[in-house]
């Protein structure tokens, strides 16, 4: 891409300039001001918004709107996967106060099951392949759902007094167990999951022509449906109220008559199901389903959760959007260092806002 190198340098200068401006303002102007902390927070918000806006503006200058939109369309499956995975991570963090390293593995387990079912169905009957895939997807979701339920009921619930690092270790142990169990159950033969469709759809908005893979349309539809359902459940049902109550304090919620056991078990199960959808779309590209394939997605989901803040349900989704935009643009700027650029940006953002972009400061009694 011509001009990408120069644009990258421009961005680096802009970020450095914003950081320098912040330090100058903080150390020289706000120094003796009684409302220093307040002003500092506001200035930081403005500068972050300005920085992200500047990055996007430079990208528009280099790529033009049409190309940017096209890039976004091509990466929309990744966005859906990341959104689903992030929601799973955040649900478990809210109810069990731990980062679930087994999220990716639970998901992969579901994807393996789905792929096996799809392969059996395609081999035995000549029903239309889309239906087969849907049956596979639903069975995969169910299996991961049950797996999540089982993990909570059999393991996490019994370790109530384990610290949160201890719970992390339990999920890490689960990763190993599931990793060992997968080849035992599904055999060592390669498992392949076909895509819903390998066609692309062309459409035009205004004067521009855009291309979108039909597979992404399925992904968008399913993801949007599931997430809207989940978030409306969180907002409007008794279960959602229970989740929010458990998230703010498990003990108090229990005393108020919320059945926290059911809440956490359901959260684990739903997280498993969401993961299974994510893994299904991640694997459904006609290539082999692999045991460790969900690990990078899971790392990105953690990053998105930190970036958007663990303290809200919506923030991580914004974080996932940002990460997806960064990581889909980065290869066009610099192919070799793309991961470094993306993680570096996230690191900078989190350093500027340690509680996440939408985090609220919680007062702690000492």
């Amino acid at each position, binding site marked *: 891409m011509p001009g990408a190198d120069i644009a990258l340098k421009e961005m680096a200068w802009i970020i450095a300039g914003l950081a320098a401006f912040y330090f100058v303002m903080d150390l020289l102007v706000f120094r003796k001001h009684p409302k220093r902390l307040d002003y500092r927070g506001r200035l930081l918000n403005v500068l972050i918004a300005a920085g992200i806006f500047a990055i996007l503006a430079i990208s528009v200058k280099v790529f033009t709107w049409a190309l940017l939109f096209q890039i976004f369309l091509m990466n929309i499956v990744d966005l859906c996967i990341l959104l689903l995975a992030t929601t799973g991570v955040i649900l478990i*963090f809210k109810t069990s106060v*731990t*980062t679930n*390293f087994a999220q990716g593995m639970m998901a992969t387990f579901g994807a393996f099951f789905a792929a096996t079912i799809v392969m059996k169905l395609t081999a035995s009957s000549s029903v239309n392949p889309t239906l087969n895939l849907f049956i596979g997807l639903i069975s995969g979701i169910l299996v991961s759902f049950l797996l999540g339920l089982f993990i909570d009921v059999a*393991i996490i619930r*019994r*370790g109530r*007094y*384990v*610290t*949160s*690092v*201890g*719970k*992390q*270790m*339990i999920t*890490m*142990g*689960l*990763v*190993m*167990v*599931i*990793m*060992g*169990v997968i*080849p*035992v159950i599904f055999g060592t033969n390669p498992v392949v999951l076909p895509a819903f469709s390998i066609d692309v759809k062309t459409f035009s908005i205004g004067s521009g022509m855009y291309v979108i893979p039909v597979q992404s349309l399925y992904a968008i539809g399913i993801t949007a449906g599931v997430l809207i359902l989940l978030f409306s459940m969180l907002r409007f049902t008794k279960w959602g109220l229970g989740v929010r109550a458990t998230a703010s304090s498990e003990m108090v919620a229990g005393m108020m008559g919320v059945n926290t056991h059911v809440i956490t078990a359901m959260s684990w199960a739903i997280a498993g199901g969401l993961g299974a959808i994510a893994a299904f779309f991640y694997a459904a590209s006609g290539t082999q389903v692999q045991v460790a394939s969900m*690990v990078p997605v899971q*790392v990105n989901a*953690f*990053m998105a*959760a*930190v970036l958007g803040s*663990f303290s809200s349900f919506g923030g991580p989704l914004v974080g996932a959007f940002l990460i997806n935009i960064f990581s889909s643009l980065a290869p066009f700027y610099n192919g*070799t*260092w793309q*991961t*470094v650029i993306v*993680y*570096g940006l*996230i*690191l900078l953002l*989190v*350093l500027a806002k*340690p*509680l*996440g972009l939408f985090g609220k400061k919680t007062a702690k009694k*000492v």
Partner: protein
Amino acid sequence: MSQVRLWLEKGIASFKKVTKHPYFGFIVFGAIMLIALWLRTLNVLTISVINAVVLTMIYSIIALGFSLLLGYGGLASLGTAGFVGLGTFLLGYMHGKLALSLGLTLLISLGVAIVLGVIVGFISLRIEGMYLAIITLGLGEILRQFFISYETFTGGYSGTSMREFTFFGKVFVSGDGAYFPMVYLIITVLFVLAMIATINIIKSPTGRALLAMKNSDSAAQSMGISLIKYRLLAFVISTVFAVLGGFLYLMHIKFSYPPQWSLNFSLEILAAVIVGGAQSIFGIILGVFLIFGLNLAVLNYIPFFSENPALIVIFNGVLIILVVMFYPGGLIRLLQLLKIKCSLGIKRLVVKWKVYRYGKDH
């Protein structure tokens, strides 16, 4: 006669004094390791077992540094793999390719480690708890990507290999008879030194300050403990240990492949520290052996496991889960409990014997 008795008592007293010394256990442990090397030269121990022993020592050094962060500082960091990898590549590049002397390489690497530790330490001042774990995880990913992309330094996907090193003017080439014993010796000495350094840090005011910080930042600060100083110190020490571990890893394995320094390795170190017991040095060694050495040294010789390699992974996972659920203080707690139970049982037996011998005390 009484003279002899006096000497004997004096001898026993001084023996007790020596065995009670905190270094005694470590030096005995080092000596046992040297005996293991001797047994290897006599072909009593197989390659796989001695390999497990060496890996346990190397990873124990890394885990000791890590335990200062986690067990004493309460700071969970998942960037360990990146630092260990950095150590291997620094040695491979500077000593292997640029042919700098080992001492100079070590000095420069320590400098790099300290700078990195300070950077992570500063990050840890702003970000805490679970957030810190995830951000350091990101840092580890950045380092890994850096290793993969920066080919002149690490060799990219073909990795770095090191076949020989110069130590005090003598060249040791791999495949030579003297190579493995020399590496083993260096590793053992550094391992014992690392244990001694760790116990010194733990028992010093620094360790106490770290413990205070773990329990409560605010309380520690109000007692006059400088958060910035001790956090940076903890991270610097841990990074230095990790880089040293990387050095030894490259010396022993002779090959380092950039993609291998991933999240998985950091998690395994974390698991080792948690399983063994984050606050006890022998506990950490036990944990490292269980996670890294057990399958090489023991499970491979049990037909049930060697026929189904997948079961080894499952076994490790189940072990981690069970230990964390039932012995939150680590497996070393189990051993301590056993010790207490045994001594109680012996006392009871003695009482019973006395009752039998002399009759009941009315």
